[in-house]
């Protein structure tokens, strides 16, 4: 078992997100989602993985109302999203997009991050607090007054992340948070996820970084062709029996999973679980 999986087992449950037979067809006839059933409890850390075109982005856009299911039903904290405006759903689900340059418009990092909470009607004092905390959590506190375009691309991505964190929504969705980040940047993102999780926020992340997924999420939803192919823990998703499914959606297991299987240690999706398994075997032999 990985660490996130162990922590999850002891958590009390309220249901945050429920998709029932959700399907989606674009206006030009392309089908992007088919019969998706998913229930995510409050506080869960869920990763969504799959090849390009598997429906991941379409799925997360249903969550805040940018796209509406053409079939099936979507509920957030028990309430159907059907007749609720995007602006209203943005209070419940914060979505950080992949390309930060599609949302940055302010002259300073601070003003940029303040945009979200202001839209949600927070008071001036609250906004300041939320902005400071968000910048702190991504390591940009020292750049409050910097112009966003004076930051490099990877830090602009962190800025976009902070902008969503500042909205303080119960559900936080991020699209490919680690692409373009160096090791310290990825470290910050992990710390941020831990922080949000400690506050009880539900976290959903799209990622093709399998190591990042295995080490930080307790649940992996594997998508392919608009459907959910697998919905299980990293231990189950990276187990040898699941490899053909991963392959069908252009995903490869993590290195420790590959080596662990080769050595007959069972499913070892992370370095830590591999080491434990090997230690256990050597101790017992």
């Amino acid at each position, binding site marked *: 078992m990985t660490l996130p999986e162990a922590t999850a087992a002891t958590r009390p449950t309220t249901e945050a997100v429920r998709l029932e037979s959700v399907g989606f067809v674009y206006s030009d006839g392309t089908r992007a989602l088919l019969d998706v059933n998913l229930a995510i409890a409050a506080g869960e850390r869920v990763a969504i993985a799959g090849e390009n075109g598997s429906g991941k982005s379409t799925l997360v*856009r249903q969550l*805040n109302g*940018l796209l509406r299911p053409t079939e099936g039903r979507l509920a957030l904290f028990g309430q159907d999203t059907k007749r609720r*405006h*995007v*602006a209203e759903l*943005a*209070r419940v689900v*914060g*979505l950080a*997009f992949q*390309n930060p*340059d*599609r*949302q*940055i*418009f*302010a002259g300073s990092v601070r003003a940029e991050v303040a*945009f*979200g909470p202001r*839209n*949600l009607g927070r008071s001036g004092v609250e906004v300041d607090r939320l902005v400071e905390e968000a910048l702190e959590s991504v390591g940009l506190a020292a750049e409050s007054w910097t112009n966003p*375009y004076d930051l490099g691309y990877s830090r602009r991505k962190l800025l976009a992340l902070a*902008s*969503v964190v500042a*909205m303080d929504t119960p559900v936080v969705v991020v699209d490919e948070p680690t692409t373009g980040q160096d090791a310290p940047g990825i470290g910050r993102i992990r710390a941020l996820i831990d922080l949000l999780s400690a506050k009880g926020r539900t976290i959903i992340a799209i990622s093709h970084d399998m190591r990042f997924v295995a080490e930080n999420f307790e649940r992996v939803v594997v998508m392919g062709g608009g459907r959910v192919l697998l919905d299980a823990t990293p231990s189950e998703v990276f187990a040898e029996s699941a490899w053909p499914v991963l392959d069908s959606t252009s995903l490869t297991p993590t290195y420790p999973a590959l080596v662990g299987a080769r050595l007959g240690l069972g499913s070892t999706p992370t370095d830590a679980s591999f080491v434990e398994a090997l230690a256990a075997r050597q101790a017992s032999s």
Partner: protein
Amino acid sequence: MAAIAFGVRGWTGPLSMLAVVLAVVLAARLGRSLTPYVLATLPIVISILLVNTFFYPSATDVIVALGPLAATWTGLAQALQATLRVEAFALSVALLGLTTSTDDLLDDLEHRGVGRRAIFVIGSAIRTIPRMAERAGEIVDAQRARGLDTEGSVWRRVRGVVPLAGPLILSALSEVEERTMALEARAFSAPGRRTTLRPLADRRWERVLRWALVVAAVALLSLSVAGRFPLP
């Protein structure tokens, strides 16, 4: 062709040009795509018809009188002639637009010596519009996801202008330097002519036809102006 349609007095000019245009349209099977262009000319056509029919000066052959206004045959005839001119002109321009691919046109212009920078600027401008529209769509999504209200009162929507236009402009500007570098890195500023990828076949009969049209236009126009045009 547009010149002939407008410049030659009487019916023959516009009628014959219209006939040519329609013949080409049928041959190229562009009928349906012509509809928006025809619809676009309707406002002008309707006003021409009304104004000329009712208000043609010094016409006395009345068709019907509606109070102070009188519709005259002379007026109607002039109206129809003018309509034909407008339609022939508009549709021949439309035909040009529908049958010419921008890429082919730009390629050909470059082949004939128009500088690569001018071609680049034009080509880029044409392509920018749909590209910016797509980007704008992504920006709207991203800002709505941050609670920007795009469905509320006018005042609220006005406040959305900066967060919507800002990223579009800023990202376009910040990309300029990188785009320039990328162009230079692919030898854009090399001297001489670029290789033409798609040499457009300029067939003999096309060239002859082009010149014939030009000659005909000049000839017909001068005859018409000199008052010696033989047909009505």
